[in-house]
């Protein structure tokens, strides 16, 4: 019996929804609740990692928020100033939006990963280690997303893509180093 002839308990078969094609103007998260959810996600990840029954680890729960905020505060000025200095076309506001969007998406991922980290921390002593590894992974995701976003805003503004990509890579390297340094301070 072929699948096509089977009685249809399986109801309406719909194809997976198509992803909306990229618009000329990047579609960044701008709603406050999305950012609040992202901040809550990073905090939840740290808290889940700290729930290994160790008070010391619990004290490290806000480490992710401190690292994220530190990277944004310390590295974004260099992005804006360097971008304008090199004569690229995207507006400073769109650069800030690009960075904020990337960190918001990373925070959403952190929220999604919190249950897994919680289960692993509750059943082993891997919590603190997983917390650090989770933050490294989330940070890598955020920085890769920043590169993609910066590319998009420069393209939308009609700027040179090659220069923007190189600049984004250099800035991302700086942000990653700052993030690693802050992670060492807050998580070890």
């Amino acid at each position, binding site marked *: 019996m072929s699948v096509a002839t089977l009685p249809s*308990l399986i109801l309406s078969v719909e194809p997976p929804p198509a992803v909306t094609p990229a618009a000329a103007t990047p579609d960044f998260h701008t709603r406050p609740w999305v950012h609040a959810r992202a901040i809550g996600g990073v905090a939840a990840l740290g808290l889940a990692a700290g729930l290994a029954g160790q008070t010391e680890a619990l004290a490290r729960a806000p480490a992710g928020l401190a690292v994220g905020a530190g990277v944004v505060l310390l590295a974004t000025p260099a992005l804006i100033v360097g971008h304008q200095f090199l004569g690229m076309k995207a507006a400073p506001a769109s650069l800030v939006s690009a960075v904020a969007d990337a960190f918001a998406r990373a925070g959403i*991922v952190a929220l999604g990963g919190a249950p897994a980290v919680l289960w692993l921390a509750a059943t082993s002593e891997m919590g603190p*280690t997983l917390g650090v590894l989770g933050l490294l992974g989330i940070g890598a995701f955020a920085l890769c997303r920043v590169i993609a976003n910066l590319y998009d805003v420069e393209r939308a503004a009609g700027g040179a893509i090659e220069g923007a990509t190189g600049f984004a890579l250099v800035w991302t390297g700086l942000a990653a180093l700052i993030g690693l340094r802050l992670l060492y301070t807050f998580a070890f």
Partner: protein
Amino acid sequence: MSLFTLTTQVLRDPDAVASSAASAALGRLAPPLLALAVGGAALFGLAAGAGSGPLQATYAAVKMPVLFLLPPLVVLPLVHAFAEACGASVPWSRLSVATLAGLARSGLLAAAAAPVLWLPLSVETPYHLAVLLFVASFMTVLLPALSTVARAVPRGGTLRPMALVGTALTLGLLIAQTGWVLRPFVARPTVAPTFLRAVEGDVFSALGATTRSATGDYDDAWAPESAGVWRERRAE
């Protein structure tokens, strides 16, 4: 629709089942799909524990559905979050049905693979080799479930390979640690059957020891010296 018809469709075309995104479909499909997954996993557990006697087989049959269902369900929020962060959002209802359909399919494969696993375990296979056989069989039957879930997420978006690697690593870790917490499935021949052993260390602290033992190196015994990924595990 009968359970038999659903079984056929889950085996032949799980993506069609996974495409039933409506909430009503989830409510209607969840119980039979769950029954297929739990039943198949229980049979697989029965085979895994059969070599150690009927009591251990019963224990393993009770625990196996938990090992089958818990890691994929815990990792589901991460799959959803990654999809959203990559710009390829998938509704919760679609993701849930896809997970259940995948698990049902894997449950059926597990039931079919149970005799294959039982065969070597019934002929006094060395303990550590039996454990490795069990782990390899378990991962093999679980793979179709994971691919069904992966196909339920729409294509496209940004940074999808990164999301895939992150999800796979997390799921692997969850399965390993959950299996470690719920052990033993295959009991040691010299130990009386037990439902759960005391939680000691984590899965990494034992992986090295069991690999060495499987190759005939019984130095340092089985028990880990201490716990944790970065800690000392062997006494000097």
